[in-house]
């Protein structure tokens, strides 16, 4: 299974530091990283994920408008034919909201995991490593049992 990860900052957000560090971290952990940079549209994510057969799409947002930017994101992926693990992280809402609420909102939108801006890159790498391993196993089981 592909270990390619597509990274980007969604919407009109121009915060680049987080994904630069993430790119380095996933690179160092042995992933192939496609960094789409800042101000990336849903379509750009979907196209890149399709083109590179990405196992995961990691969305970053730090300017507080993530919910708006991610409406229909998973539908876009699906309609493009992308079936990847999806994460989102950053400052996802404006103000000092309860993070559990934020997590629920974005899980509702279809993301497999939701991280706040305090999350260490190591944690994201570890989570993805685990999720992809599990997914591989599930796929294998599915293949065996089918």
């Amino acid at each position: 299974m592909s270990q390619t990860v597509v990274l980007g900052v969604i919407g009109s957000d121009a915060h680049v530091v987080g994904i630069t560090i993430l790119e380095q971290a996933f690179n160092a952990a042995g992933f192939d990283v496609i960094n789409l940079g800042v101000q990336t549209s849903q379509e750009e994510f979907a196209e890149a994920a399709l083109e590179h057969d990405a196992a995961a799409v990691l969305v970053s947002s730090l300017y507080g408008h993530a919910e708006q930017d991610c409406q229909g994101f998973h539908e876009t992926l699906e309609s493009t034919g992308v079936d990847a693990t999806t994460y989102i992280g950053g400052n996802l809402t404006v103000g000092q909201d309860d993070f559990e609420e934020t997590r629920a909102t974005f899980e509702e939108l279809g993301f497999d995991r939701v991280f706040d801006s305090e999350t260490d890159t190591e944690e994201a790498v570890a989570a993805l490593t685990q999720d992809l391993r599990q997914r591989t196993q599930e796929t294998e089981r599915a293949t065996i049992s089918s």
Partner: protein
Amino acid sequence: MIRDERIPADELQRIDDEIRSNWSTGDAVDFEEAIDYHESLPQRKRFADVLESADKPLLQPRAGVPRLDDQIELLEYLHGEGKADLLPTTIDSYTRDNEYEKAQEGLEKARDTGEDTLNGFPAVNHGVEGCRELIDAIDAPIEVRHGTPDARLLAAITFAGGFQSFEGGPISYNIPYTKRHGLEETIEKWQFVDRLAGAYTERGVRINREPFGPLTGTLVPPSIAIAIMLVEGKLAATQGVRSITLGYGQVGNIVQDVAALNALKELGNEYLPDEVVVTTVFHEWMGGFPPDEARANGVISLGGMTASIAQPDKVITKSPQEFQGVPTKEANSAGLRTTRQVIDMAIEQQIDIDGIEEEQDLIERETRCLMDTIFEHGDGDVVQGTIQAFDSGALDVPFAPSDSAAGAVLPARDDDGRVRIFEWADLEMDDDIKEIHKARLSQRADTEGRDQSFRMVADDVDAISDGKLIGRPQGGA
């Protein structure tokens, strides 16, 4: 092919006519009448004169709200309670994207509801008359601060509106701010802004121009920032600007910051034409702030301390509420007064720190490498050189969102907290200088008992907001 050449008069006129038709308020701009207005302003509102004649660092905050009356009240407060010497008018995001229609909607909503529906002052929408009401009301010089890649209409209106200082530049308001604006495009647009400032200057109204020094605000190595300041200063000078304030953002190591400000001043005077009056501005820490006003005050004070030693001409202050975004006017004033107290207590002390000259020498050598490669890339033309050097990666800015920069160079702090380059990518630099950086980073790696890696970069990015200068491993040295 765009080159570092002055825009001819007829071309200036043509562009001016064109851009003034982009929004209804453009019609009210009348250059001759604007000259008269500027001439009517008292000495204490003339930005370049006030800045250039000061005998100690002047303080300036950031501030902008959508409504004119609110902006007047805000600036009066920062002048009166905050004792700001120079005032700002920060422009809203829609205007920065040239979306005057959306800015108009926001402004009208702000007028209707009393809420701040824009994150700044939409100067284009307020027009020449609105700007002048602001200039008339405030008893100090005011600068336009924004982040606009295409600031031509904003410049035309605010210059005619009586503002005498204008932040930004084709690289510094492109590379850190937007993804897809090409450098050639922004250089062309800023040539017009600078030429317009030059046209006023030729008539005796010296518009001060201030390239944005902090760039991405995140561990930018001093030489990279200074090289870009020199390029933007040269471009402005070519268009006739004669008052140029070169900027630099605090990295937090006092020796390196003082050395960088010294180098900026020195190289500014060397690289820019003699007829330009070069001043410098020091930005208090532009990276992440601690989520705690008390700790934020410590960060601000370290900036004040540095300013008292380096004595730049101007200091842009931060507020203790930096972490949470736009500060209240009280917090904004508090940042000004904390900075003032530190500077006033320390500035009369003779504080000569060892190693500043050595660090300054290193920064100057690095900057010359970058300037040389720019000139070489452009066969002597700084515009072409800049475009090509960014294209080849010989010139680069860390953490740049723009497609125009490789953004491949990565900084990390050395064992003393000075910003060095960990990943050079294609950045042009003499090998012996690279060896110095490598040795300094290796010393840090030894102290911390870990390899040099991107983790240092990641740890350093968060260090100050976590309460330290250097991102040491948890529980480490």
